[in-house]
Each structure stands twice: as C-alpha cells, then as structure tokens.
C-alpha cells in the first residue's frame, strides 16, 4: 500500500481501511497494486541510471516482501560528474523532474545505504561513518522479514544499535544466522556484492550534451566520434569488436538501445559508424528523438582477439573484407535473423537435415579451409565434389512442408505413374527409386511412417522429388503421396 503527497496532506494514513479513507476523502483515487508494472518501471529507471554507472542492481527481494529500490555502485564514477555530492544532486534533480519521489543515500556498504535511504535523514555518509550512522535506526533497516523484526521488538530490541553490542551466539541461535549476516553486511564486516542487471561492457565511451541533440545527422556524427574513440583502447588490448550497443538517453528518461553485430572482429571506426547508420535506417519507425538525447553511449558488449594478419594490404584480403562488411551491413539494416547461412543437422529426414542460422552468430564465415572450424563436418563432406560424382539424388528446391497430391501408383511399392499437383496433371515417364528414409521414432513417436522417395520425370521434362508416406500393408493401407522438391 502506498500514498502520494496529496492523499497524505488530506489526512489519509497507511494501514487505514479503504472505507475509512473513502470517508475522509470521498474522491479518493485508488488502484490495486500492480507488482509487474512496478517492476517494469523500476527496470526502466535502472536502465536510465546507467548514465551514472554501469553497475546498477535491483535492490528488491520480492519474496521477503520488501520495498523495491535500486543499488548503484558508483566506485570510480563520481569524479566524472564532479564528485559524490554533485552526482547525488544531479540524480535527484533529474528523477524529480521526471515526476518521481526519491530517497537517496550514499554510504560505504549497500546495507547501510539501504537503511539510511529509508529510515535516516542524511544523504551522504562520510567514509567510515556508516557504522555509527545506522545504529540509531530501526531494525527494519536491516532488510529483515517483518516477522523477525516484530519478534525482536517483543524482546525490546528495536534499533540496530541494540543488537550490535549483544553477544552474537545467542542472537544467532534464537533468530537465525540471517540476522547476523544482515548486520555484518550493513556494518561492512561482511562483503556484499550487488548483481548488476546488465552485463558490464568491456569498454564504453560516452558523450554528454548541454544542449540535447535531435537531428539524425548530428547523431551519426556523434556515433562516428564515439567509434573513433573506442578504436584506440581496442588496439591496446589487441581486440576487435564483435558486438556493440548504442544507448541513447532521452531527456525525458527514455533510453533507446541499438545493437550491432559483426561477423568477425572489427576495428574500423568508419565501418562501425556505417553499421549504426544502417541499423537506424532499418528501424521500422524512425528513432523517436522527442526533445532530444542528452547522453549517447557506445558500449562494446563483446570483443574477440583481433588477428593482426587480417589487415594485410593484400588484394584478395581486401576483397574478402568487402564480403564480410556487406554481410554486416545487411544484418544491421534488415535484422540479424534475416541474413543466414546453412548449417547441417545430423538426420536423414530432408527437411530436418539442415537449418539456417544468422551469419552473425556463426562466427568466422565458413569458407574453404576454415570450413572445418564451423564444427560442421557433415557440410564439409557433402560439399566435396569428388565424393558424389555426377549422380544427382537431391533436389535443388525443397518445399518447407511436403505437399499432398493425388497419385496413381503401383501397389504395393511400385513407382508413381500419374499424379496431380497444384491443379495440373503430370504423366510420369521416368522414375528412380524408392529411396527409403525411415522415420525417427525417437522424435515422432510410435505412429510415424516410413518414406519412400522417388525421383521422377514427366513427359515434358519436369523433374520432381516425391515420396510415399507409409509402407503399404505394414503401416497403412492407403499411403498418401507428397511432393517434396524440384530438380533443375
């Protein structure tokens, strides 16, 4: 249950019944609590808070029924904004401007900050002073279950200071180890790590603007500048960029994220800029700049070792890079899952024997000698021209789902003679088969049927790949025929 300022001003209190509150304020506006919406909003705020530090964690443990909140680890970040006080003031001013009521506290330990933000008065606890500061606070400040706080209250232990000086063993025996752990965490006797929501970027560079940028050209220029800035640290570490994320912080608190992946390590600012241009151009609706972005950040989410030999100035290498750059560009604009390559699966059922995967996820493109690096030996075997000679048994075009047709065929297992497919009749002149492909009972279950594939040619020279579904007499008495592919 929560109240806003106006309700408080008119005399409504927490833990009042709704009818009492309605009697006090007849036009009371009340809504049931929506935990999911709260959480979603908190996550959005957390995303926005990444403008201060990459280490932002949700400070809520819902199973204990505690307040929601955020932890931010600003170690090493405060100086970027002119010190801790300036950071706190900036954070509070911006959140208030967005219409949030916030309570903030900066302290040495997450536990102490949590307690002081909720039950204390001070905003910034000096280094080392947190232990003294939290002692007078209520025990609720230790992030304990309400039942434990109540039972501690019954024996007269109401503040943190009360239990800090007591012998530890009897307390732990009576109230559990959790109490001592929380106390130690708040006082800094025990380390407590927060788990950030977003994985921390390997490298990140950002630019803040006094005057928000709105124009797409300006944004492109900023991206180019950020990309240039990120090249040097990448070089120093011997890395090349594989995946990076652009974060656009809008003035009104909204954060836009754009991801770009590359097929292989990249260390070219111009290319990064172009990829983002394509990514923005490929958005279904334009980037909504609203009143402008006041902070743009470029995060390197994933980087791989950059092979220096790749930048050799040899002609064919340059050409190969042209190919990779094309694939990256297509993926950035159209979406990664729309640019795919074949991968083979270990099965004989034709439609399951291959899959398509986004090129960006395949790693190094599988060409020539590097093909074995794909871990796709089946593909390597299948594409060996010496292995199969001139006999063609598989069609060039395979239908996603085999299409049912009317067929006249020899019983029990002879080749088809005539069939009707998509409204046209064909008379078969030549046929080869059957090639029997058994079902995969471990996948399809007991009722699955065997397929007998035939390669046929009609009077006009159309070549088809079709199969009889089920063995006559053993699996079915009326096997159906399906069209599955077209030969050249």
């Amino acid at each position, binding site marked *: 249950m929560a109240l806003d300022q106006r309700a408080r001003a008119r005399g409504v209190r927490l833990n009042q019944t709704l009818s009492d509150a309605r009697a006090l304020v007849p036009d009371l506006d009340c809504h049931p609590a929506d935990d999911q919406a709260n959480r979603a909003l908190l996550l959005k705020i957390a995303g926005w808070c990444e403008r201060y530090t990459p280490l932002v964690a949700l400070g809520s443990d819902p199973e204990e029924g505690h307040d929601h909140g955020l932890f931010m680890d600003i170690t090493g970040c405060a100086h970027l904004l002119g010190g801790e006080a300036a950071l706190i003031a900036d954070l509070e001013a911006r959140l208030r401007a967005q219409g949030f009521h916030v309570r903030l506290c900066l302290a040495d330990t997450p536990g102490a900050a949590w307690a002081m933000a909720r039950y204390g008065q001070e905003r910034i606890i000096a280094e080392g002073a947190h232990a003294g500061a939290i002692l007078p606070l209520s025990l609720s400040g230790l992030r304990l279950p309400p039942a434990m706080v109540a039972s501690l209250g019954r024996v007269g232990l109401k503040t943190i200071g009360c239990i800090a000086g007591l012998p530890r063993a009897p307390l732990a025996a009576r109230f559990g180890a959790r109490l001592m752990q929380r106390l130690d965490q708040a006082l800094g006797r025990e380390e407590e790590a927060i788990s950030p929501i977003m994985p921390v970027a390997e490298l990140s560079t950002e630019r803040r603007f006094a005057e928000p940028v709105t124009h797409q050209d300006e944004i492109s220029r900023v991206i180019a500048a950020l990309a240039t800035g990120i090249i040097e640290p990448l070089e120093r570490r011997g890395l090349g960029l594989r995946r990076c994320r652009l974060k656009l912080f809008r003035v009104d608190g909204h954060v836009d994220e754009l991801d770009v992946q590359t097929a292989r390590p990249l260390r070219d600012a111009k290319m990064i800029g172009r990829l983002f241009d394509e990514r923005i151009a490929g958005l279904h609706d334009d980037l909504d700049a609203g009143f402008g972005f006041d902070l743009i950040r470029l995060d390197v989410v994933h980087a791989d070792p950059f092979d220096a030999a790749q930048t050799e100035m040899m002609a*064919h290498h340059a050409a190969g890079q042209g190919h990779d750059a094309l694939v990256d560009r297509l993926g950035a*604009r159209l979406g990664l899952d729309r640019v*795919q390559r074949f991968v083979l699966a270990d099965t004989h059922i034709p439609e399951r024997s291959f899959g398509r995967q986004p090129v960006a996820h395949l790693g190094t493109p599988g*060409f020539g000698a590097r093909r074995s690096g794909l871990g796709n030996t089946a593909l390597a075997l299948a594409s060996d021209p010496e292995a199969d000679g001139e006999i063609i048994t598989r069609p060039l075009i395979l239908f*996603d789902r085999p299409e049912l047709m009317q067929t006249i065929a020899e019983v029990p297992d002879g080749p088809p003679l005539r069939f009707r497919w998509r409204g046209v*009749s064909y008379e078969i002149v030549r046929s080869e088969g059957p090639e029997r492909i058994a079902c995969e009972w471990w996948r399809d279950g007991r009722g699955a049927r065997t397929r007998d594939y035939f390669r046929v*040619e009609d009077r006009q020279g*159309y070549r088809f790949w079709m199969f009889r579904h089920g063995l006559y007499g053993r699996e079915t008495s009326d096997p159906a025929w399906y069209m599955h592919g077209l030969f050249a």
Partner: protein
Amino acid sequence: MSLSRLQTATDILKARTRAYEAQAYQAHRGMALGDGGETSPLPLGASAVDRHLEGGLACGGLHEVRSPLARDIGAATGFALGLAARAMQGDRSGRRGVVWVTDPATRVDGGGLFPAGLAQYGLDPSSVTMVEPGDLQGAMWAADEAAGCNGLAALVFQIKGNPARFDITATRRLMLRARQSGVLALILRQSGEEEASAAVTRWRVNTEMSGADDILERGVGAMRLSLTLERNRAGRTGQWLLAWNPKVRSFNHAAPHPASRANPPAHSLDRLPASADRQALPDKMGQVLDRRQDFGRAS
C-alpha cells in the same frame, strides 16, 4: 548577310547536337555492352553459346533469368546456380560467396534452396548467404548493396512476377552498381513476363526431357535445360539445349531428345520488344492448353 550568319549559327548548333548524340550513343553502347573494362567475360562452357556471346556473359553486369511458369523455377534456379557456381570457381581476384536475396513473395509457393541438392549440383552450400528481407523494398535495397560489393562473386535476386516497384530504373541502378563492382548480378524471375529492363541479357529457361540413363532403363538421366536468349544488348538472340555437369561445373551442349515437346518454332523470337510498363502488350484471351494428358482421357 544576316540570314547567312543565322544559317551558320544553325549549322554550328546542328553539328554540336550531332556530336552530343554520338557521345551519348557511345556512352549508351558502352553501358549496354557491360564490359567494365577490367573484368573478363564468364564463359558458360558450352562452345556455341560462348561463341555467340563473344566469350561469355559479361561479369560486371546484370542478367535476367526468367521462368515462364511456376513449375519451371527448378530449371531456372538450376541455370542461375550454374552461373553462380562458375562465377565462384574462376577465382576472380579473391571474390567469394553468393548472396541470394529473395523477395518474400517467392517464399509463398517456391520452397527454399536445399543444401544437400546444392552440394550435389556443385555449389558449396556454406558459401551461400541467404538474405530474406520482410518486403520487396528491403529486398531491392539488399540487392543493390550486394551488387555494389566488390568482394562478392555473384548475386542472385529472386523475385516473383513483375512487381511494379522493380521497374527499369531499379534494374538500371543494379546494372550500374554491378558494372562498377564486377559482381555477376542475376535476376531470377519466377513466373514473370518479359519486361524491358537494363539487363544485358535475358534468358528464358524451360525444362527439357533428360537424356537416357546408362544404368537404369527407366531412370532419370542427366538434366537438360532449354535455354532461350530472349534479349541480348550486345548481339543476337538464340536458343540452345544445355546440360549441366556438376563435377567440372560447366554447361555442355546436349542432343535433343526425339520425343521432346520443344520443337522450337521457326521464328519464335521475331516479336516486338517488351515495353517498360507492359502497356503495349495485347490483351490475352487465355492460353490453349493440351488437356489430352489429363487423367480420364489418357487411360
């Protein structure tokens, strides 16, 4: 006096106009021939066709492969893939890979490429990058990008029918980009009509009865394609019967089958050129179909 001066001015203007026209004609011819200067033509492997094309297909250029009926798409795909395989085989300064861009409309009934079939056909499936944008505009953009990429061996742009958006301007753009980059750009038009475009050549592909199989009496032999060069900016048109040899990745001439349906009409190609907006085509009254092979009658 004044009259004669006027005449001289007119003459000068006329001469200039003639010069400009000659220049424009030269430029047009240069574009039409599609010889980027530095790229050598890509031979098909079949001697008569290569002689006819004066060495082969222009590599940095746009070519159209058309299948008149939906079921001919297998043959047309085979021809396009054969060309792509040849483009990749001749290692042209480190170019690699085929980009296969599909218009989403083809997906509805066309099925998709089958890697096992590609491998048997002589094309490494791992060298094919499939691009499937959500709409035709995206597909045209992707094709443009790929045609302009100088690290690519071949681009195949598969479309269905004759969409109005993919007009002569779009093909001209593709053509120019391919000419600059040296990519073999192919339009694979499924069940499309002939349409004026900037392509250097346009091929109609029909399937043809295969030759006899040595091992199996009723077996399906080596595939055959009936190729019609409907349009050739650089020379004459023609018609051939070709077979594809996957082992050496080459087209060969094939002997016509005696029972073949294709007894090519004597003047099949003496038709008016197609107009850009298909306005000039006469209204079709429908086609006469041979229904004798239908179920009831044939038995």
